[in-house]
């Protein structure tokens, strides 16, 4: 965890860790894991809101909890940039992390694999491997997606790859 900013570190320590090592093919154990995922996500979302650092919405897109969809956003130069967020829970979860996808940015940055999967190899995968199975979706967002957005969105905006939408449509968030 060297090299991480103290903010991320302190947030991370407050996200509940998970205890069940189970994937989507593990029946009842997966249901238990799913409960733990929800608890961690609820705690993390609440924490973000109370720290005025709300930055994503995510919910299960199917009853099995194997596909998740939502939004994430990043503020750069006082403007908010919002993106669709989606991912599948892999069969080998939690040994392998979910591959977070931002389909709208597909092809716009080199730090991305085909289909809009963000590149997590260097900054996140080793951490996930080391902390298996205690890390879950909430940790992947906190340690994988958040730093990626912080690094990539400013470059995408400054290079003109992405444009800000009209203020009218983006300032509706209360």
């Amino acid at each position, binding site marked *: 965890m060297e090299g991480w900013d103290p903010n991320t570190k302190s947030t991370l320590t407050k996200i509940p860790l998970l205890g069940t090592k189970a994937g989507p093919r593990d029946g009842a154990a997966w249901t238990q894991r799913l409960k733990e995922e929800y608890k961690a996500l609820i705690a993390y*979302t609440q924490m973000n809101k109370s720290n005025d650092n709300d930055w994503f919405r*995510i919910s299960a897109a199917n009853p099995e909890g194997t596909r998740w969809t*939502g939004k994430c956003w990043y503020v750069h130069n006082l403007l908010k940039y919002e993106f669709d967020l989606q991912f599948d829970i892999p069969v080998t979860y939690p040994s392998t992390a979910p591959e977070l996808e931002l389909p709208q940015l597909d092809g716009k940055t080199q730090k*991305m694999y085909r289909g809009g999967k963000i590149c997590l190899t260097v900054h996140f995968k080793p951490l996930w491997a080391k902390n298996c199975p205690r890390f879950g979706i909430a940790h992947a967002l906190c340690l994988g997606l958040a730093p990626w957005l912080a690094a990539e969105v400013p470059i995408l905006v400054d290079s003109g790859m992405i444009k800000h939408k009209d203020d009218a449509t983006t300032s509706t968030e209360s």
Partner: protein
Amino acid sequence: MEVELKQLMADLQSLNQSLPDPSLHASLLKIQSRVEHLASLAKSEPVRRSKVKDMSAEVVDSNPYSRLMALQRMGIVENYERIREFSVAIVGIGGVGSVAAEMLTRCGIGRLLLYDYDKVELANMNRLFFRPDQVGMTKTDAAVQTLSDINPDVLLESYTLNITTVEGFETFMSSLKNKSFCTSKQGSGVDLVLSCVDNYEARMAVNQACNELSQTWLESGVSEDAVSGHIQLLIPGETACFACAPPLVVASGVDERTLKREGVCAASLPTTMGVVAGLLVQNTLKFLLGFGQVSPYLGYNSLKDFFPTMQMKPNPQCSNFACLERQKEYILAKPARDAAVKAKLEAEAPSTEEGPLHIDNEWNISVVDDCELDVSSAKSSDILPEGLTHELPVADDFRNIPTSEAPTTDNEDLEELRRQLEAINSK
């Protein structure tokens, strides 16, 4: 093209009729016959070879298998024609997988199962196999198009899916189990699985399937900086599985700090990928046809032309449940294996009368076979040979680390938790 040629013929015809000077008719006729020839050339289909019923060793230009059957005459392979009975599954039809598929197709493999979910892009053209006119096709369709042209004898099955998703994985498993090609086969429906994917997640999915099916597989990989690669043989229960230890990578052999990682996620070269595909299929042929030795792990460092090799025993504390099951079975099968080895040795070296060396054995001294280490004392892959490193760290043993969140048997309802998250989300 055809229409234009027809037009040209008609023009020539009318020119012929309107020409006053008959001396020009002969040369005009000549031009006409040449256009006719061109038209017939344009009409003819590209040549497709027909299927061959039996592999022949006859050395004639028209025999596609003569040079392969020669392996038999030279004593390298005992029975080359057996290759038609084998099924090989190739997962990932990219820079390595597509070339491996072409090699096996040209070797006359019986059946190939191809898995990929990607499409062909212009960005793939720095590698072998795919052509610019195939851009936009799925890699599986494009591969079937090319491979069936090269060798129609090979039975091709293509699966356009992502094996890491729940549905994709189920289809993957059932396709491997399908025995319709060779009903007499033991175990699964394929003889070998080749993993030619470019990411850890997909490798872990192949590992999971093969551990569950007790299916031997060969893993291959090329580093993201395109200058090194490896192949690895995985026999569930007998050798380390992909989850037994963090994946091995070939160290680049140059100062890591001089490598620029910023900005790009992957580079690739047709050379490195071709070399790795060649090593992979060479070992596939050795495994299937039973000649030479199959390398348990073979690395390739292209910057120094260095090929490290090693062997890995399974990890008795592997995190993969199916791997542990296979390890148990392997240990249980040891007496049968020993008996088979003994029988083979006896068959090879017949009847040298061997009585007991000593009539009495007061101290019960016996000679113990040490070629197969007891699993409990076998060390797994902690010490690596020169030139290899681990790609990811080992998971901390979470059972020994006290967590504040003990996995209590909570009676919270999943639906209730889902509603709670939705409530926070909508605030």
